[in-house]
């Protein structure tokens, strides 16, 4: 075989490698995008999850020819030109003394640079257009969905405050009197503003199937947006190490229809009416105080809870 391959010129070798790579890549890319792509995590339970799945799909498709180039090339080189591994040093022949190839190096640099820049543009567009793509975007996000206002009394989105503490999640609904529940309920087809904070150490809120992930830092109000599209269960886990029971710091929730959500929250508000005054007043962040309670003395954006739930924002009615 060695004698035969030596007759080929560099160009012929390159053409063969290029052809193999092109065929394999095209097939593999099609398979990755069309066959594997729809099954990639995190599924399609929300707008954000769908967007992340699309991004996973695109990146996996772009990565495929890169993998294949290196593998095809390595295999080709090893098959064609390797020599016996126990060849004595005295019988070794030198390879062609090529120290570089300006054109090849330049092409490589240009291709990688363009790919990287394209990935950057793609990632940025996906991040900005999807209002943070389900990630925690700080206390004053600048890429926001329609209807978002920083003032809790003006925003048209449903606000769910996610409070992490060692080792459980609770959820407060400031537009419904600040009622606090241990399960997350949210209506489908509605943009929800998650305000994530912590009472002690760093946690991280991850609604796995909704593709929403935001760190819960003490003293920080970290906002993420999400819109569920399908009714069903929500799987919530803590994704930042927060102490010995980090592994079992999970919660669950339900995506329900708007009417069901309204029924549920009204019932919760009614059930908890007597308890709400004993909770710290709703605030963006909660700091431990000398009296043992948790509240932020500087911000108190809501009127004190009255006998009836606060008016429901128009978008939710």
């Amino acid at each position, binding site marked *: 075989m060695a004698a035969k391959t030596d007759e080929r010129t560099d160009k012929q070798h390159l053409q063969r490698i290029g052809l193999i790579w092109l065929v394999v890549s095209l097939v593999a890319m099609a398979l990755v995008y069309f066959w594997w792509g729809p099954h990639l995590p995190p599924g399609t339970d929300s707008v954000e999850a769908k967007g992340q799945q699309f991004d996973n799909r695109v990146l996996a498709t772009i990565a495929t020819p890169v993998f294949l180039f290196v593998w095809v090339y390595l295999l080709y080189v090893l098959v064609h030109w390797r020599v*016996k591994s*126990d060849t004595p*040093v005295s019988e070794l022949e030198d*390879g062609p003394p090529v120290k570089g190839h300006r054109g090849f190096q330049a092409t490589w640099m240009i291709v990688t640079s363009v790919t990287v820049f394209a990935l950057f543009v793609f990632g940025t567009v996906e991040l900005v257009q999807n209002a943070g793509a389900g990630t925690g975007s700080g206390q004053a996000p600048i890429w926001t969905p329609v209807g978002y206002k920083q003032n809790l009394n003006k925003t048209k989105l449903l606000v769910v405050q996610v409070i992490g503490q060692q080792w459980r999640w609770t959820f407060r609904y400031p537009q419904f009197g600040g009622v606090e529940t241990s399960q997350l309920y949210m209506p489908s087809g509605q943009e929800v503003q998650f305000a994530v904070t912590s009472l002690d150490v760093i946690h991280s809120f991850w609604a796995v199937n909704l593709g929403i992930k935001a760190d819960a830092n003490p003293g920080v109000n970290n906002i993420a947006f999400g819109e569920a599209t399908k009714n069903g269960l929500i799987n919530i886990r803590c994704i930042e*190490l927060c102490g010995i029971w980090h592994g079992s710091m999970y919660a669950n929730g339900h995506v329900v229809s708007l009417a069901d959500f309204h029924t549920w929250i009204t019932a919760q508000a009614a059930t908890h009416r007597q308890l709400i005054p004993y909770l710290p007043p709703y605030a963006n962040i909660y700091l431990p105080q000398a009296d043992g309670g948790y509240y932020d003395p500087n911000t108190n954006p809501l009127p004190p809870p009255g006998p009836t739930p606060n008016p429901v924002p128009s978008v939710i009615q």
Partner: protein
Amino acid sequence: MAIDTTPAPSVDESGSAPLHNTHDTKPWYTEGNLVYALIGAVLGYTIGHWFGNWLASGYQQIQGSGQNDYALVLGYLLATIGWLAGLGILNYPLMKMVGLHPSPDEDDGAKAHRPLRAYFTYTLDHKVVGVQYLVGMLFYFFTAGLFALAIRTELLSPTRHILPPGSYLTVVGEHGTMMMMMMTSVILGPFGNYFIPLMIGARRMAFPRLEALSFWITPAAFIVLLSGIIVGGFPTGWTGYAPLAVEATQGQDAYLVAFGLMGTSMIVGGFNIVVTVINYRAPGMTWTRVPIFTWAMLVTAMLMVLAAPVLVAGTYMSLLDRTVQTALFDVNHGGSSYLWQNLYWFFGHPEVYILALPGFGIALELLPVFGRKPLFGYRTAVAGMVGVGMLSFFVWQHHLFVSGMNPDMRPVVMLTTEMISIPTGIVYLVAVGTLWRAKLRITVPVLFILGMLFNFLIGGISGVFLSDVPTDAVAHGTFFVMAHFHYTIMGGLIFTFFGGIYYWLPKMTGRQLDQRLGRIHFWTLFIFFNSTFLPLFAVGELGMPRRVFEYEKTLQGLNMWVSISAYFIALSMLIFIYNFIKSTILDPKPIIPDDLWGSRGLEWMTENPVPENNFAHVPTVLSGPYEYGTGAGPMAVIGAVPVEAATSNEPVTHEGGS
């Protein structure tokens, strides 16, 4: 540097070269040794612990919690000082400091035939330090590997079944911390220290005392970290995030002191290598002739010098929060939980490249030797490594994409992170070019290099999913991340480390490892490494967070597969350990390594075993190390000037020592 073989004016022998003084008159017990070091450590710990108790036992927070962090931290610090003093490391600098003129250290290591005890003492010869590092690093690596087996055993079941949650997190933290802090020196320690002077034609390191110090800190850091298990464990994993670290049990002090010590070791060890490569090159060793492995070591060492101080500062702050009740990380009193994350990752991301660059260096160093071709695009390769090093300081916030910190900066960090794939890709560019028509001998070292090229590709490309914010929203904090960095570090660094052992051990010891067992080691490691870590990408994407022992029942099948594969990795490592012990100690077959691989490199041109000054005569470098097939003559000629008389590769005014 111009070629200059004329001997420079002679300088005072004892001042310029303390290594040469090898008269052996004093008995061993007048010198520092391991026995004194252990006594010093115990004494130091006792005094520190007593002082901490005396000082702070009446404090409110200590009476309330029942744990005195002052006593423990002071105990650790004084134990370390006692350990170093017992080894005799402090004698020379202390005597200098008080104006005495210490006699140059007696140094067993510098002799051609080194007594065995030289390897167990504070020794200034870089060749001995290299061997000490090699054995030490293997020991640390296998110890940390045992913790990994414990983790995988617990993860056989989706609920708790062997380890209680606190112990589980301690095991996870010990594994992660030990691997991440010790393995920073896994290649730089043994091969960097041993081979850099040989590769650049220097007779010694610039700062042998700092070099030896950098090694002798590592056992202290290792033992302090292990002691964390006894004093209550720590719950933070290797990242030590702050509000949790401040409230954690006393094992956290062990983590912080150990990581700080290892940071110090990185700073002094890296500093020595930077200065050596810049100043101690032989005549004719111009920058374009410096071997690519030495370049990789230089960049790695620079990253260590620049990044590790931030880590040391961070551990110091965290210790202050835990002991004297500062509030640097306490949001309630003006601190911030973000501060630790910033400090930690400002060190942590360059550290990732401290762990990657040595692997690139070995891969690119070996491919020309075994392919009998010049290194393709030498200057591009150097530029790539320097580029990786520089960019690594601008990407740390990608660890904080969902933290809410600087959310509007994320596109910039996304760009810098993805840009790193350009200089990293250069490693593949150079490998691809070098392999073109290369008459590659697939020896055991080459197998490991090819394995690295395969693994690191997966590691690198999975990194793109983590650098892109929307896809990172899925992968962040899950087993995907864990699989990603095991592919880059274990698949890159550790594979090339083993490749380096099979390649260079003959030069270091005059003994070659069994090649057949080496092949079995490679194939078992390669297959079961991939079988272990490839499924973990899926496990992470399907919703399993890192550092948990409770996961969804549907993921149990994959986790069991991974755990069983991990046991086979351990089996593969046992093959290596058996091979290592058999080939070097039990059944050694001495060989003369000069022409073993047919390398042109300067490190193969010295005598065997390597003489005390590395070269009997000053070498003059005539061409680059990779001129295979170009018709260039040998890389260097060993000149007529005896090394003892020549100072041309040392600064003339140099006082000697550190």
